[in-house]
Each structure stands twice: as structure tokens, then as C-alpha cells.
């Protein structure tokens, strides 16, 4: 091979190498440019994603506004992709909201096709026929022009899912075939997913708070119904259902309640009027299911925006009963004061009008004294009750002998008992200490009340026995009475009662009906009993109860109708015994 040939081969080789290097450089350059373009595209989508999410945060913030999310995404869409129509549907129980933003002029048919595809998507997801549901339509942006006869050739739907439930569909459509790129669609899916997750999280927080609120509303004794601005019931508590006898109904509408209240109040009209004129209504007393209610209807507003209304069923049955009892009580007190006052007035008139013999005058003075004493006792009782209610009933405890106190009271009532033809005696346990700490003045008042009641409600030639004995916790009081030589007839099991001194006053009167025994020590309900019919305010037993309870003891009563009644009280020894 000649040197010339070798030179040509070398030149050709060098050229080939040079060309290869050039091609490699060009390819690398092309690849770099492609990668650069891809990075630019990626950056563009990322920037858009960040911008839209920021925008969503600014506009929607911490709210559950799914419509706001759809509006914000559609509002920014033209910065990101080219399209003809962006639209959304939101699904509500009674309607579908459809909104379309026309970026380009399209025909009515184009819009209807988009709408149909969205409804089909939602229907398949929810496995429901949504075509018959009322649809509210809003269209904005470019004009609708029938001359534009371009059909829908590209579209994609993004289901709007909140807490795992589809609440709407977002759709982007275009008249060009296979127009949208996967990366564009994926970016929008990502944005919607992030926004939906934020709403879902917030909805979880709100649901937890709602659950607390619902538990609170459910436990309220007043009936509560809350409605939204379209008067659909959002919350109804058991008390509201009970007020109208709807305890077993699960699905309730405002119409159900309006029907239940027909003829008493026009609930639907009042609720609507309350929201319309922003005013609270309070009904007259309404009788429902053997109870009395006042119905309060109030609008619920957030700043200037109406959120709905609240209906409260306020049960005033107890208030009415208390009011009636108080009125009865006042009438009784007035009557009890008027009788002795009337007697005093008549005595004085008689003494002024006629010349009286000395013994007759003395009799009149005795009657005036007796009547004024009755009034004073009544006033003292009322003052005692007032003190008890005000918590100002002071005890002056001191080591005292209950046996001496009982003997003293027997002596005090001896003449009155003889006048009433009643045999008054006592039976006292031998082991009763003489240094039990109690207030002798108030316990004396207790014994006075019990003995005077026993006389008042006894039969002629009847008897009263005042008994006292010591009781040990866990022991049978009947056995304790037997050991003490006491004839005990209280059947109540007192084994659980702590170590106590027990005092009982038993009469042989007509007895008390079982249903009235529980009410005897109540200062208001007592006025209904037979005691009231026989005269007296009945306050004595209420005062007795308060005095004994102030000593840490209990009061009780037992009766066998036709045979008599026993009233007893206990004074705990551990608290009241003196060292």
C-alpha cells in the first residue's frame, strides 16, 4: 500500500470520527434541550399547582366550601391549559347545581353534552338515576352561539370526593380531538385531590365538634329543632320528638312537626317569618301530650347571612305546677292568718260593745291569747322555712339528754292530751346516753311538731306513744327494740342506718294513704294531704325534716291505714355524741 493511499484512509477515518463527534454533540444537545423543555414543563405545572393551592387557601381558607374550590380551579384554569368549557356539578338531595364557564364560543348542544356526561359519571358512581333531579344551571364567560356546531371531542371528569363520598364532578371539555395531555389532567387531579383532602380533614374536625354539640343538644330537657335556610331539619333532639309523640319516627321533616302542632301554632309560617324579618317568636302556652310548652322560634344568622332557624320546645309543666302550688300555699297561709285575726277582731268588738263580767272577759282574753299564739306560731313557722331556704338556720348543739327532753314534752302536752282525750306516754331504751350532742331547742321543736300532729290526727280515746332507742349499724331494729323492752312497729329495714339514736312518735289515728307518705315532708306538696284538710299549714313536717337533716339524721313515716301512723327521726351518734 502506497503512502498516498494511507493518507486518504487516515483523512477519511479522521473525518468519520469528526462527524461522529459532531453527531454525538448534536444529539447530546438535542437531549439536553428536550430535558430542559421537560423540566420547564414540569416547573410550569408545579408552579401552577402551587399557585392554585395558594389561591384556594386564600379564597376558601378554613371552610367546607366545595363550590368555592371548583370556582377557584375553573377561574385559574386558562393560565394553565387551553379548553372550550370548564364546568362543575354539585349534588344535593333535592337539586343539582350545574355551572359552566365558556372559555370559547360553543353551541347549546355542546353545553348539554358536557352536562349529560357529568350526570352520567355521577349516576354511575352513585349507582343512582340523577336525571330526574331538578337542575339549577348557570353559564358565564363566552357567548352561546348555535352557529358553532363543533361537538365535544375531548373531555375529562374529576370526581369531587369529600370524606369518601362523591359530592360533585368537575369537567374540562374541548372541541378538538384527543386534546388534553396526561400531565395536564394529572396535575388537575392532584390539585383537586389535595383540596378535597383538606376539606375532608376539616370536615372530620367539624364532625367531631358536631358530635359533641349533638350529644349536648340530645341531652337537653328542652326540645330543640334546628333547620337550614331551606327549612330542612339538621338537628332534632329526643325531647322535641317526645313533645309531639314522635319518639319512634326516624326521618322527620318540619312539615311533620307543623302537622303535629296544627290548630295550636302555624309552625311553618312562623319559622319562615322569623327568618324573613329576623325576629324571635314566643308562643302562648301550648298543651301537648299532657304537658305544657312554650315554643320559641328564632332565626340563626352568621353576620348578615341566614343559616336557618331554631325551634325550642320549653316544657313549662313543672313551672306551672310549682306556680299553682305556690298559689295554693299562699291562699292557705292567708286563710290560716285570717281565721285567728277574725276571732280576735270579733272578741274585741264584743268586749267594746257590751259590759262583761270579769270571768267572761277572762275567757275572751284567753281566746284572744290563743288566736294570737296560733298566728305567732304560723309566722314563726314561715320564718323558719324562709331561714331554711336561705341557709340561715343555725343549730346550737350541746350535750343534751333526749330522755329528759321527751319527758318534758310529755308533761307540756299532758293537759292538751287530756282535753283531746288521748293517752300520751313514752317508752325509752335503757342504754340511751344522756350526753348526745344536739340542739335541744330545735329537737324540742321537732318533738312538738310530731306530738301535736299525733294529737290532731288521732281518734277519741286513742293513744300516742313516744319511743326512743339506740340503733347500731347492721343490727335489726326490731331485735334492738325487743332487747330495750320497747314495742317497735316500724317495718322499715334500718340495718344500713349508721349508729343512731332513733325517736318515734306513734298515733292510733286513721293513718295515711301510701301515696301521700312520700309527700308529707315536702312543704309544698304537703298542702294537698289530709293534714291540710284538718287545719294547719303542714309546714311543721318540712321544718322537722330540715332540723333533723341539719343534725345529719333522717326522718320517715310509716302507716297502716285505719290503725295509725308512726313518724320517726334519727340522730347519728358518731357525729352527735359528746366526749
Amino acid at each position: 500500500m502506497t503512502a498516498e493511499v494511507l493518507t486518504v484512509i487516515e483523512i477519511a477515518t479522521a473525518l468519520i470520527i469528526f462527524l461522529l463527534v459532531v453527531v454525538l454533540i448534536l444529539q447530546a444537545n438535542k437531549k439536553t434541550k428536550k430535558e430542559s423543555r421537560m423540566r420547564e414543563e414540569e416547573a410550569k405545572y408545579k408552579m401552577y399547582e402551587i399557585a392554585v393551592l395558594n389561591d384556594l387557601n386564600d379564597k376558601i381558607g378554613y371552610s367546607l366550601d366545595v363550590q368555592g374550590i371548583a370556582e377557584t380551579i375553573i377561574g385559574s384554569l386558562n393560565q394553565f391549559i387551553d379548553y372550550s368549557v370548564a364546568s362543575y356539578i354539585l349534588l344535593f338531595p333535592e337539586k343539582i347545581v350545574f355551572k359552566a364557564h365558556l372559555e370559547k364560543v360553543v353551541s347549546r348542544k355542546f353545553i348539554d353534552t358536557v352536562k349529560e356526561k357529568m350526570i352520567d359519571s355521577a349516576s354511575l358512581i352513585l349507582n343512582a338515576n340523577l336525571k330526574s333531579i331538578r337542575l339549577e344551571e348557570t353559564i358565564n364567560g363566552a357567548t352561546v352561539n348555535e352557529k358553532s356546531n363543533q361537538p365535544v371531542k375531548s373531555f375529562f371528569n374529576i370526581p369531587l370526593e369529600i370524606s369518601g363520598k362523591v359530592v360533585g364532578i368537575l369537567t374540562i371539555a374541548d372541541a378538538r380531538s384527543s386534546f388534553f395531555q396526561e400531565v395536564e389532567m394529572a396535575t388537575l387531579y392532584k390539585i383537586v385531590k389535595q383540596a378535597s383532602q383538606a376539606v375532608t380533614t376539616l370536615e372530620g374536625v367539624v364532625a367531631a365538634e358536631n358530635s359533641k354539640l349533638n350529644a349536648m343538644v340530645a341531652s337537653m330537657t328542652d326540645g330543640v329543632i334546628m333547620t337550614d335556610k331551606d327549612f330542612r331539619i339538621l338537628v332534632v333532639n329526643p325531647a322535641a320528638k317526645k313533645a309531639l309523640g314522635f319518639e319512634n319516627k326516624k326521618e322527620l321533616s318540619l312539615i311533620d312537626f307543623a302537622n303535629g302542632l296544627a290548630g295550636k301554632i302555624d309552625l311553618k309560617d312562623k319559622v319562615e317569618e322569623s327568618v324573613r324579618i329576623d325576629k324571635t317568636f314566643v308562643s302562648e302556652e301550648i298543651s301537648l301530650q299532657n304537658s305544657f310548652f312554650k315554643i320559641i322560634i328564632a332565626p340563626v344568622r352568621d353576620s348578615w347571612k341566614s343559616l336557618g332557624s331554631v325551634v325550642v320546645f320549653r316544657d313549662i309543666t313543672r313551672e306551672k305546677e310549682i306556680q299553682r302550688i305556690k298559689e295554693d300555699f299562699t291562699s292557705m297561709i292567708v286563710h290560716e292568718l285570717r281565721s285567728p285575726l277574725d276571732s280576735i277582731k270579733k272578741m274585741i268588738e264584743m268586749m267594746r260593745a257590751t259590759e262583761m263580767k270579769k270571768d267572761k272577759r277572762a275567757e275572751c282574753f284567753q281566746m284572744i291569747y290563743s288566736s294570737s299564739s296560733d298566728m305567732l306560731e304560723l309566722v314563726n313557722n314561715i320564718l323558719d322555712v324562709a331561714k331554711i331556704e336561705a341557709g340561715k338556720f343555725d343549730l346550737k348543739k350541746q350535750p343534751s339528754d333526749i330522755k329528759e327532753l321527751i319527758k318534758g314534752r310529755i308533761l307540756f302536752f299532758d293537759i292538751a292530751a287530756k282535753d283531746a282525750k288521748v293517752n300520751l306516754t313514752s317508752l325509752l331504751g335503757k342504754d340511751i346516753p344522756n350526753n348526745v350532742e344536739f340542739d335541744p331547742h330545735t329537737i324540742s321543736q321537732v318533738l312538738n311538731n310530731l306530738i301535736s300532729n299525733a294529737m290532731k290526727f288521732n281518734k277519741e280515746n286513742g293513744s300516742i306513744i313516744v319511743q326512743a332507742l339506740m340503733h347500731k349499724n347492721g343490727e335489726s331494729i326490731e331485735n334492738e327494740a325487743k332487747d330495750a323492752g320497747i314495742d317497735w312497729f316500724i317495718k322499715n329495714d334500718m340495718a344500713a342506718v349508721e349508729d343512731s339514736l332513733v325517736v318515734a312518735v306513734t298515733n292510733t289515728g286513721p293513718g295515711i294513704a301510701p301515696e301521700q307518705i312520700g309527700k308529707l315532708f315536702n312543704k309544698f306538696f304537703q298542702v294537698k294531704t289530709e293534714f291540710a284538710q284538718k287545719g294547719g299549714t303542714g309546714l311543721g313536717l318540712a321544718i322537722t325534716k330540715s332540723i333533723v337533716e341539719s343534725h345529719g339524721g333522717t326522718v320517715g313515716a310509716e302507716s297502716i291505714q285505719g290503725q295509725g301512723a308512726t313518724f320517726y327521726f334519727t340522730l347519728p351518734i358518731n357525729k352527735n355524741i359528746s366526749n
Partner: protein
Amino acid sequence: MEEAKKQYLSLLSEVVAAAVIIFGSDMAISRARSVASLVLNSNGNVVDIKGYAADAAQELINKYLELSGQSFKNIVDLVFAKYPQIKKVY
């Protein structure tokens, strides 16, 4: 063509058809085409599967589940119910 593959082709065509309704044709077809082992015709029907049918089905369904989890799963459950011989792959 073996019966099992026929069933898979039919099932996957139904899955794609449901996805077209739910996500729209652009997204549904784009996702289906991104599964390399599937061959789709111009109507979006799955006409061939290269490789293991179960793997292809799993890949396709996962791509749709990424878009809408529970909603699409409910639909796929209904489709799979029609093909008791095919084991669920998601």
C-alpha cells in the same frame, strides 16, 4: 384464544368503558394506553394482552384507583362480580 384470556379482555374492556364514563374518554383512554401490556383499539376496547393478564388487570385498575379510590372500586366490584372465575386483583 383461550377462554380465560377472552374473559380478561371482556372484563378489562368493561373496566375501561366504566372509566370512560366516570373520568371521561381522554383520561380513561390515556391511563389505559399507559399500561404497556394492553392493546386497545380505537373504540377503547382491550383487544390483546401481552404477558400475564392478571398483572395487566392489576396495573390498569390501580391506575384508575389513583384517580378516585372508593368510588371506582365500587364500580370495579360490580364488573368483577360478572366474572366469578377471575380473581380480584386490587
